């Protein structure tokens, strides 16, 4: 009885998730009348605007990961080692982006950093790019921090640090050569997740008027029929690859002896 | 007719034959212990009685009713787990009331039952506490009260003392046994601790490799082990190799010295093992005892008992003597003579 209910529940879920995925794939193949074809993909991939926006978002995602690592790793390390009392505060701050809607955050950016403000970031393209980058880093903060903090939990941060210090290493060396390699898997998990979030992000890019993949998707959706489905398939594959990489690196970690 | 009957129980996990043709009859009100090392199948037998595992074949009857195909909830049993397993979201009183509540008993009866049980386990004032506010020993007593509240026909105890401190473990033994006697409830107790088994049980089933090696009261199990496994698993046992000179007359040779048991031993063996409990061996001895010379290798002081290890030809013998303030125990390196009565020697074949 229980098992029957469990199967029913599970299969219901599978059906709910499979239908839209099947639907979008099927739809993306229908561009040529009467037969299935890859025409929609050919059109999309050949579109210079697609190439430009996808490249822009990819670069943005990679930069976001770099910024995220630079901000999160030293902080998580420092809090674990020296300021355990500040932990709840830091954790609270890192969780805020899950509660404050991104649209509100970017709204704040537009007003706080407008052309007549003390830091007129929105005045130039480079400034706006930087702002978008910071926005993305903020969005990824909860995931990145959680991942890195979990990674630090599994290693003995204090002993590693003291051992490195006793060998004469400075802070930068300790972080880059000792701590980072040991939490690399955790950092990579956070990084792939960040990539998946940033690549299709819409609100921030649209409101900051940046030529990113998200706004391009919306533009296509408003004007084309079959291409959006093809784009959705591509976006889904990108997300899937990111998640696959996460489970791949986590599995890889299980075979490396944990430093203790 | 027995109150709880297990007949020809078998259990396979895949190709693994965990319980082999297990039979057991338990009388009403009896306290029976399944004793054995981990992996011997004792827990699987208990879980089959509880209904968590389905026997591959065989039958389980409780009070004349075949329960083999019944679900756990319909078997009318109570169970205490190793890790307490109290419901953390309920107070002590709510935990104890659980069985009565799901049975749909009236409010007044539930309250009375809970009060009675809490008195029985001597925690009458802790009904409002949550499990996390109790010590391990208190939690396990509450778990016992919960299992007993609905007056089940059979009580199953799955290593209930293993998670506790040594001191509480010993005091709870007596308490569980006293409550069991008071309620007269048929009980099956699973443990790997022979001391628990010997001190609490009416009967013990010693298990190994999915088979009951011996069934009997503690006195029998300890003093007349049926197999080499039982002899080795229950209590400390000294073994010395001996050559058979004359099986019919019971004459044997231990490292050059000849000894006479004064009774026949099973024929057809060239060498046998002589087994001796440490308390059956002395350093002085009485007339008629068998004597062997040896050298003391180790002396350990346990308070009321002093254990002296003596190396003799054919093996090493642990000798337990009572502490005596008037005479010092021997020192390591001293030459001594050990002595034991021929009737205390167990002969173990291969």
């Amino acid at each position: 009885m229980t098992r029957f209910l469990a199967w029913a529940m599970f299969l219901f879920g599978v059906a709910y998730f499979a239908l839209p995925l099947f639907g979008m794939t099927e739809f993306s193949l229908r561009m040529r009348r009467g037969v299935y074809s890859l025409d929609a993909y050919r059109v999309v991939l050949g579109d210079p605007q697609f190439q430009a926006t996808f490249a822009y978002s990819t670069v943005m995602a990679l930069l976001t990961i770099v910024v995220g690592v630079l901000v999160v790793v030293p902080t998580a390390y420092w809090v674990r080692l020296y300021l355990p009392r500040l932990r709840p505060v830091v954790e609270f701050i890192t969780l805020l982006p899950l509660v404050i809607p991104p649209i509100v955050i970017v709204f704040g950016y537009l007003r706080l950093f407008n052309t007549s403000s003390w830091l007129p970031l929105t005045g130039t393209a480079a400034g706006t790019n930087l702002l978008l980058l910071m926005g993305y880093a903020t969005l990824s903060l909860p995931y990145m921090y959680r991942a890195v903090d979990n990674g630090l939990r599994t290693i003995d941060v204090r002993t590693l640090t003291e051992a490195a210090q006793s060998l004469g290493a400075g802070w930068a060396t300790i972080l880059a050569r000792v701590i980072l390699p040991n939490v690399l898997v955790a950092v990579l998990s956070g990084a792939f997740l960040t990539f998946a979030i940033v690549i299709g992000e819409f609100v921030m890019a649209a409101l900051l008027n940046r030529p990113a993949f998200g706004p391009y998707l919306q533009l296509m959706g408003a004007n084309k029929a079959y291409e959006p489905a093809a784009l959705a398939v591509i976006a889904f594959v990108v997300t899937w690859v990111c998640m696959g990489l996460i489970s791949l690196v986590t599995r890889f970690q299980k075979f490396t002896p944990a430093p203790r | 007719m027995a109150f709880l009957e297990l007949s020809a129980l078998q259990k396979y996990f895949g190709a693994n034959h965990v319980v082999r043709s297990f039979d057991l009859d338990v009388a009403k009100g009896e306290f029976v212990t399944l004793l054995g090392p981990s992996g011997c199948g004792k827990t699987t037998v208990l879980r089959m009685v509880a209904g968590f595992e389905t026997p591959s074949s065989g039958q389980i009857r409780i009070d004349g009713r075949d329960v083999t195909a019944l679900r756990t909830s319909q078997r009318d049993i109570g169970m205490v787990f190793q890790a307490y397993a109290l419901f953390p979201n309920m107070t002590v009183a709510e935990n104890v009331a659980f069985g009565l509540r799901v049975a749909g008993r009236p409010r007044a009866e539930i309250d009375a039952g809970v009060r009675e049980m809490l008195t029985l386990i001597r925690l009458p004032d802790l009904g409002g506490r949550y499990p996390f506010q109790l010590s391990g020993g208190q939690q396990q007593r509450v778990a016992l009260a919960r299992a007993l509240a609905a007056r089940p026909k059979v009580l199953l105890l799955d290593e209930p003392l293993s998670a506790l401190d040594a001191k509480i473990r010993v005091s709870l033994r007596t308490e569980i046994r006293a409550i069991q006697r008071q309620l007269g409830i048929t009980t099956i107790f699973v443990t790997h601790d022979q001391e628990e088994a010997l001190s609490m049980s009416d009967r013990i089933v010693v298990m190994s490799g999915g088979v009951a090696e011996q069934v009997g009261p503690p006195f029998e199990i300890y003093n007349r082990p049926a197999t080499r496994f039982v002899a080795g698993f229950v209590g400390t046992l000294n073994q010395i190799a001996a050559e058979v000179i004359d099986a019919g007359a019971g004459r044997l040779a231990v490292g050059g010295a000849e000894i006479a048991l004064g009774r026949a031993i099973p024929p057809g063996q060239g060498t046998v093992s002589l087994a001796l409990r440490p308390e059956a061996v002395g350093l002085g001895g009485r007339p008629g005892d068998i004597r062997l010379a040896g050298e003391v290798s180790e002396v350990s002081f346990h308070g009321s008992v002093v254990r002296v290890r003596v190396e003799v030809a054919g093996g090493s013998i642990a000798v337990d003597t009572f502490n005596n303030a008037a005479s010092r125990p021997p020192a390591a390196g001293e030459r001594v003579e050990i002595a034991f009565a021929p009737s205390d020697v167990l002969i173990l074949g291969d």
Partner: protein
Amino acid sequence: MAPFLVFTGLFLILPTLYIVVGAFRATDGGFTLQHIAGLNTPAIRNAYWVSIRISFWSALFGCAIGLGMAAAVIHGGLPGRLRGPLMTFSGVASNFAGIALAFAFIATLGPAGLVTLWLRTEFGVNLRAYGFNLLSTTGLIITYLFFQIPLMILIIAPALDGLKREWREAAETLGASTFQYVRMVALPILFPSILGCFALLFANAFGAVATAIALTGSSLNIAPILLFAQIRGDVLGSPGLGYALALGMVVIAGVANALSIWLRTRSEKWLR
């Protein structure tokens, strides 16, 4: 520590505070409640209300279905091999939000979508005739569930793992049916976690803009779409009102979380 504080201060705290302060600042710089009061128009009230309803229902169904699926795999006796793939898929689907998700549902349940056409040609069922429209609150809830359910599966799994096998066995020996065990033991123990998940799912849906915009353009009047339009073109005709609108969103998401934390500490009394 310093880089973290500068970063979050500059790009998380200050921008939000700017909005909060802006909601109470009159044109001359003084304090005013006029913007907040200005929210009390039928259009804005309605936008909030629709938003809350969508978030509430998608969070509720997301919690229920996600819990059901996770429980089915973890405790329902399904083969253990299903667990890994389900978790990986949940990771993918919970992040497959935004524009692309809307496309997937348009291709499936939209006017020319796979399921819509199939039901019409094979069974003669016209979804539209039954009042179903993907570009509506119901459609939005169904679409949101695509990321809400997997998110629930991911965050409730650890709590489900925390349910000890012995609790269930103890309940069974005491005569409880599976249903009684679930109602009296499992759900009360899970309840705090479920509340926390509900709040997270609520906030998750409440802040979602991209899916709604791609799905409905700006035809559906919900708070984030209204705010989006306001930021783009000041459709409300008052910058202060925009701040107030944003503040309202933060407050609602915040209240949902505070409420769940409060209920959680109350229901967690047995864990200190």
